[in-house]
């Protein structure tokens, strides 16, 4: 269970446009992590770290309004995304090709008043949100692509 935290880019600039929704550097769910490297220039505005686990790596992007973590399997596929911050990120960016099926499932999900969590399950992706003001959290993941032996509680 060794964990290496390696700071790839330490920047003092933390300018973000409209919070996390504008982080161009994010790879999308189910795609390769290559866009993370190709967008290195766009990353100049965020602090970025990589954490290596036994069967995946976590790419972390931080802005003042929140943090997004992308879970990349050894073959290089983003199988999960987790976040926390002032706002929930724009899922249309993060879910990529899964956006349509998520939004369709979202429409079918009955709103439960008073509940401070929410879960949307579609054919291939599960989206969960929870938390409270100034500390909103959530995750989106592809159950079929989670590497074996990875506990869902690690996606946080």
């Amino acid at each position: 269970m060794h964990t290496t935290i390696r700071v790839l880019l330490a920047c003092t600039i933390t300018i973000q446009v409209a919070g996390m929704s504008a982080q161009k550097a994010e790879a999308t769910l189910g795609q390769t992590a290559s866009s993370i490297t190709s967008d290195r220039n766009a990353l100049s505005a965020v602090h970025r770290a990589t954490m290596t686990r036994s069967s995946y790596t976590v790419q972390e992007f931080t802005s003042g309004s929140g943090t997004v973590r992308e879970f990349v399997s050894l073959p290089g596929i983003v199988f999960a995304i987790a976040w926390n911050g002032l706002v929930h990120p724009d899922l249309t960016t993060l879910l990529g090709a899964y956006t349509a099926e998520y939004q369709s499932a979202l429409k079918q999900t009955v709103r439960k008043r008073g509940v401070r969590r929410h879960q949307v399950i579609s054919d291939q992706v599960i989206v969960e949100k929870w938390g409270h003001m100034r500390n909103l959290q959530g995750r989106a993941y592809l159950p079929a692509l989670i590497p074996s032996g990875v506990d869902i509680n690690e996606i946080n």
Partner: protein
Amino acid sequence: MKSISLLVSVLVTLALSGCGGGGGGTTSSSSSTSSNTTSVSTFSGNVLTITVNGSLCSSSTSSSYPNKPCVSVTICSPGTATCQTVNDILLDTGSYGLRIFGSVLTGVAPTQIASGSGSLAECVQFGDGSALWGPVRTADVIMGGEPAVQVPIQVIDAGFGTAPTACQSADATPAAAGFNGILGVGLHDYDCGTFCTLASNGMYYSCTGTSCTATTAPLANQVRNPVALLPLDNNGVIVKLPALGTGGATSVTGSLILGIGTRANNIPSGVTSYPADQYARFKTTFDGITYSSSFLDTGSNGLFFPAPSSGSLPACSSPNAGWYCPPTTINLSAITTGATSLPSSTINFMIANANSLFLTSNSVFSELGGTYAGGFDWGLPFFLGRDVYVGMANKTSSLGTGPYWAY
């Protein structure tokens, strides 16, 4: 929109002594002026009645909404005696500041706060994925028999300007939201804080006509927990709700007491203080796992936590998916711990079959629980039978300097 019953009465005077007192609003608080020892010891205007699914909750917004704590607040046009009392305000220790639907503010005119050449507006998101959108305006807010405080509030209006992406599905009516308004009296003062003064943030927007763009907001313009502005009772609140037997009740009545150790009626007694972190979180250990993202929230209507590994807590089937449905009521315990890892205490609780609970005619349940992903959300059942002290950040009482929870 049509089914909204406006539980609203327009008042034309600031003589609102009837709002004070815990016994239903008939107490006369004749001397709310000087702060000498005598008035401090006798003052009871720092008490608001809470009804959980009771008379302060609107029936038109509360169906299928168990464990809903409601209070009443009075809103006045700034600097005037033109006021309006609004019921069905959700009491929420998980947020900060007052937000009220513009559609129920029929008798008062809060003052729009400018943002550059435009009008300041806000998009706030909640843990359930819902959101509230609308302009930020200054109002005089009266809680109980306290003096009015002038504070930025959010006037909820889904049709204001053009909502940003995150608020395009924002609740448009009290019926959709499940309340006329929400009173955030959690551990923080401002609903965003320093970050929103520095950079665009996804919360604050400047609107000109129908165009809204992300902006910064100075602290003075941010929506703010009105408790922080009270002259004396500004260091936190106490939530007092009675214990409840198994099977629940149709409603319960309790008190929200403003201030901690500031009056004769809010002196801490027999409680332990648990420090929270900058995100208003402390720790809970359950089923061998310690969750650092743990909090006490009257605005959450159940105990929400990840299911124990034993499988003893199956989730309900549709339409109650997300709630727990054990075959028989089970006893559980968890350890709550300060964010600084001290102190700790064991909390015993019960979880019953939610399908069975919802089949009764009751609306308030102490043994209602549901699934949660990454932490432990101690919702309203935690507060039943337990006085909970909400110690605001950077404010001090005999229980310490906030942020802290005490119980």
